[in-house]
């Protein structure tokens, strides 16, 4: 990726709470551990370096207290790094003038706070309109956009309440509406959905993806919910004790965890939503060519001890399945090819389909589920046993193939 596609860049950023932060950084750099420098201060973020691309959703995960909030607060300059630098667009937040910093915050980056940080003396509407007020948006327009944001988060009708009269989740949504109303390119979201119920949460997640794809927002998102992280995150950064231990896509993190910590962290994830057909499929062994004729097809089936086969043409475009009995009939009839006996297979799935969508087709028939790409080509198959293996957490994903019959 080129420089001007990077929205946020952290270079060796440290944040140490306490009077003697600089000294702590020096020691950390020369190899001391977080615990060793504890007397000098709490090292909340240690040597964080990463880039977030424009239009990306970058998820940060990690144990409670691992430094996620501290990290995100450095990204809009609320907290200054003790060492290292943070770039937002072309601005180095450490050296930028206060006026420019304010401008950046007004126009470029907004934030959802972990503890909401609502203005208790203002109504819900006024809270949501606050960033617009600061941006100098005219009153009527401000009101409209704030109402729209409140509607998005499901708080229509509560405009005139004060935060003190709201439930926890409603307060969080006001914080969310406020950040959405600001309509900045970059959104920093610190456990923005943690107090939401699943229904609203699902809606919000989709909303966020929609925002990202239609408006190209760059989003840094802290969450503890693995499924949410996997669902939302283009890339996920795993933090531990102040350090970023792994950055990668959901599947990378899941299938190649950097260490035991990460592996354990993601153990509970709902794999059916994360793993896709392409990651569980196997090359199909029992493929016959539609133009190859019944005899050839039967031989292939016999060699693999299978009673059915997938049919493709010479471009590997998938045509459907044939059973041994049908092919035998064709052979008896003396058909030159299989086109008369091939049956279209409606169970076919896309390589990007999550596992959760493969269960139904898999249950319909004993045949493996064909995986077919955008070009209609058969790229692999998912035998039932693969699904079961992928679901069983004790079995690693690249376990040896089982003895089951598979095409």
């Amino acid at each position, binding site marked *: 990726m080129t420089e001007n596609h990077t929205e946020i860049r952290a270079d060796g950023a440290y944040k140490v709470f306490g009077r003697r932060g600089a000294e702590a950084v020096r020691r950390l750099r020369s190899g001391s551990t977080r615990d060793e420098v504890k007397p000098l201060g709490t090292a909340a973020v240690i040597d964080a370096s990463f880039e977030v691309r424009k239009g990306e959703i970058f998820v940060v995960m990690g144990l409670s207290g691992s430094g996620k909030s501290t990290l995100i607060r450095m990204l809009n300059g609320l907290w200054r790094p003790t060492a290292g630098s943070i770039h937002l667009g072309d601005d180095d937040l450490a050296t930028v003038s206060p006026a420019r910093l304010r401008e*950046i*915050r007004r126009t470029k980056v907004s934030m959802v706070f972990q503890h909401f940080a609502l*203005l*208790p003396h*203002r109504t819900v509407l006024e809270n949501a309109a606050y960033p617009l007020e*600061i941006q100098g948006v005219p009153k009527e327009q401000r009101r409209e956009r704030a109402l729209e944001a409140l509607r998005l988060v499901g708080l229509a009708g509560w405009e005139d309440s004060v935060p003190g009269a709201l439930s926890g989740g409603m307060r969080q949504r006001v914080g969310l509406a406020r950040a959405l109303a*600001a309509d900045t390119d970059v959104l920093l979201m610190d456990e923005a959905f943690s107090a939401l119920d699943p229904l609203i949460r699902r809606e919000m997640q989709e909303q966020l993806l929609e925002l990202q794809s239609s408006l190209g927002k760059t989003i840094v998102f802290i969450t503890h919910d693995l499924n949410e992280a996997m669902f939302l995150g283009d890339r996920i950064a795993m933090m531990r004790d102040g350090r970023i231990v792994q950055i990668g896509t959901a599947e990378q993190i899941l299938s190649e965890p950097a260490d035991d910590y990460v592996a354990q962290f993601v153990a509970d994830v709902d794999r059916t939503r994360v793993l896709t057909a392409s990651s569980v499929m196997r090359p199909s062994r029992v493929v016959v060519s539609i133009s190859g004729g019944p005899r050839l097809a039967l031989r292939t089936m016999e060699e693999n001890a299978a009673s059915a086969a997938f049919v493709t043409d010479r471009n590997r475009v998938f045509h459907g399945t044939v059973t041994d009995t049908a092919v035998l009939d064709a052979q008896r009839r003396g058909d030159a090819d299989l086109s008369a006996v091939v049956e279209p297979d409606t169970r076919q799935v896309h390589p990007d389909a999550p596992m959760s969508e493969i269960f139904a087709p898999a249950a319909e028939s004993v045949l493996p589920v064909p995986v077919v790409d955008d070009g209609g080509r058969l790229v692999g198959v998912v035998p039932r046993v693969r699904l079961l293996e992928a679901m069983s957490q004790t079995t690693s994903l690249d376990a040896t193939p089982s003895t089951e019959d598979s095409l």
Partner: protein
Amino acid sequence: MNDPIIRIPVGSWAESAVDWLTSTFSGLFAFIKTVLGSAYEGLDQILTAPPFWVVVLVLAGLAWWVKSWKMALGTVIGLVLIQTMNQWDNAMHTLALVLIATVIALAIAVPVGILAARNDAVSRVIRPVLDLMQTLPALVYLVPMVLIFLTGAVPGLVATIIFAMAPGVRFTELGIRQVDREVVEAGEAFGASSGRILRQIQLPLATRTIMAGVNQVIMLALSMVVIAGFVGAAGLGSDVTRALSSINIGLGFEAGLAVVILAVYLDRVTSALGTRSAVAKAQTAAS
């Protein structure tokens, strides 16, 4: 007993300082005198010229507006009591003096308090100055002040402003410093300027504490009526002093009671203004 070993002539330095001040800044002092004097005269005219019941009705109306008809009724009763104690004119002189002193004291105190809240160095410097203003006996600077401003309402006003100002500063500072850090950060995070944060977040959320400070400013201003009377400011103070010299408890009590009625009225009005503030409303709604 404990005689000094060396005697530092602080006193005579002070005298020279006063002389120097008086001569150097006479223009400034004349200006202050004109401004304060005419402000007081004007307000005093407004309060004393109309028939007393007009003023009573206006003040009661104000009470109604900021709070309730009950408070308006209380106002009428209190003010009529002042009138029946034959303290009306004095009370109005005093009210004029206190109002002007309070407004000026607050006009200085609140900004200074804000500064002190935002800047530790200012806070450290200001604190002993406030101690001085509040505890240096007014009599000490009244004589120099008479040298400068002559007698009348102005030196009384200045002394009252000096004495009453401190709690305004202190509680503005305290109130702002007590505002939840995270809410201020929310303002910062959206790029609000510090002036905006001040106006829209810190001041509103500090209102209760600041209003308690305002209340103290008013109370202290009222408690200075006697001192103001000392330098010839008209008002209830002179009756109190007069009552004393003749051990006339009754008269002193009547004048004193008039002060208290004004105090209760002003206290109620300011505290009602305080609870009309956005925060207070929010808090009521949430309970």
